[in-house]
């Protein structure tokens, strides 16, 4: 054993430079590969941000012509783009609120109660998530076409967005509810709280992080939705539909600036959520440990 240990360093020292490089590469091959994969994921985002500072000669923003801040200075100067953004926000807000309420109630029922029809309900929740968006969009359009009402527009978009958000809210809220400590509710009831008081004072604050996570996901899904919206919008234009419509005649640089703003805003919200969670974890870690833990 000792002889081998002593021999090893001389062996390494005698290795030629290409061999050492090869050994170094082999050891880090996976990390290098992962680095390339991450570059593949991030490069398009960098391109979007970089081209928001481009000064294209024609309508098309495909070649780098020179740096300018002018599209940032008047980022909200295109009325069509602005109204599309407002429409997207309006639909996303309504869809998020309705889908979060409906989805949270469903999650509560599925986690808390044993009842006839559970499996069917679970299936009903999973199946929209496993259906291609185009089939959802097409079937909903068929439905509205045959009924002839409501007219395609904001209402049909809200109906559609609520529909595809519900399942995701259920899944997120349910995962938070599964680890829920029921003894806290029992304690509240033992101390004379009514079921309604128990819900608002104990249950709701405890499931709130899950509900917020579900709502954020619903909002993200709604504001980003293109396919289902494309089928059910009529003449109404949301942000993704605006981009689709502008694609043929050249997407204005302002769209890149708006995308950069949205990207940064999402990153900040994510960061704040993480910081908030860390703080909550630290707070609960500082609390005196209960007996038996």
């Amino acid at each position: 054993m000792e002889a081998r240990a002593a021999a090893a360093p001389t062996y390494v020292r005698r290795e030629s430079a290409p061999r050492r490089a090869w050994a170094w590469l082999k050891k880090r091959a996976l990390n290098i590969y992962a680095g390339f994969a991450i570059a593949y994921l991030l490069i398009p985002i960098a391109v979007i941000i970089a081209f928001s500072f481009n000064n294209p000669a024609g309508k098309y923003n495909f070649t780098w012509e020179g740096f300018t801040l002018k599209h940032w200075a008047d980022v909200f100067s295109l009325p069509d783009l602005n109204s599309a953004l407002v429409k997207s926000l309006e639909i996303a807000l309504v869809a998020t609120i309705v889908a979060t309420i409906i989805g949270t109630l469903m999650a509560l029922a599925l986690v808390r109660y044993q009842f006839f029809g559970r499996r069917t309900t679970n299936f009903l929740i999973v199946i929209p998530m496993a259906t291609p968006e185009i089939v959802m969009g097409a079937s909903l359009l068929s439905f509205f076409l045959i009924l002839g009402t409501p007219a395609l527009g904001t209402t049909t978009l809200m109906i559609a967005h609520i529909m595809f958000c519900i399942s995701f809210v259920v899944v997120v809220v349910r995962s938070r509810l599964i680890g829920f400590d029921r003894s806290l509710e029992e304690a509240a009831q033992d101390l004379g709280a009514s079921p309604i008081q128990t819900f608002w004072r104990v249950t709701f604050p405890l499931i709130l992080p899950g509900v917020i996570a579900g709502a954020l996901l619903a909002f993200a899904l709604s504001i980003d939705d293109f396919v289902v919206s494309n089928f059910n919008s009529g003449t109404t234009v949301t942000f993704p539909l605006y981009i689709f419509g502008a694609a043929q005649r050249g997407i204005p640089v302002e769209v890149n600036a708006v995308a950069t703003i949205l990207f940064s805003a999402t990153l900040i919200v994510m960061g704040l959520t993480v910081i908030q969670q860390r703080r909550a974890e630290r707070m609960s870690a500082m609390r005196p440990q209960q007996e038996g833990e």
Partner: protein
Amino acid sequence: MATGRRRLTPYLLLFPGVFWLVVFFVVPMYYMARLSLDSGTIEKGFEFSWQWSNYHDALTLYKDPFIRAFEYAGAATIIALLIGYPLAYAIAFKGGRWKNAMLVAVVAPFFTTYLIRTYAWQTILADQSPVTKALNAIGLAPGGHVLATAGAVIAGITYNFLPFMVLPIYASLERVDPRLIEAAKDLYASSRAAFVKVTLPLSAPGVVAGTLLTFIPASGDYVNAFFLGGPNNTMLGNTIQGLYLNTRDYPAAAALSFVLMAVIMVIVFVYIRFAGSEALMGEEATPV
């Protein structure tokens, strides 16, 4: 009284959601089925007449985009797996202090709009772009064009759905007990044998979920073919969208949508039979 109300509570909680999903998801499927059997034109109006030939006619006429949809989606799923599995593995086992940053990088594309991400690829693969010139130099872009080729569409689809591949695989790798791998090595398994016999089977549910989450949306996609493809790269999604929104040949469009869903369901069913079902449905909630 109290027990009666308790028995009703779950149904009351479920009612709004079940109502919404039945009225705006299940019932529309029925209407689409009905529409696919209509005859007539948009000018003369449509009439329900059990027109089964719609299916045959639509599939004959749109055979090419139909086949392309599954070819492109299949190719993109395989490439996403080849990129995504090693990436997920690196994040789970070699990430170290970079782990969270790597996970943020994986979900970062979701922070921008889907259409803008695809539009970015249009910029990256445009004829004048350095990427196209580099690909041309190594002979991968014949004629100096990448846009309007199958490769561009597949690259776009792979990119857009890669996070759906990485996240489930990462989640299943993250749950692998490192002691099992140590045990395999203690029993004289080589690194490779430990990976093949322990890590890979334990991550199979993630692979199943990831491939389905990539393949299902990819096969119905038309955004990538719209931005990155040419007239010879249209997918079934482009056909359905065009028939519904431009040509207004609703029966043919509905028939094609139905066939798309049926084919996906058959593929999913066979795949799950083959790979095990627990992966797709996830953990069933157990009542507390």
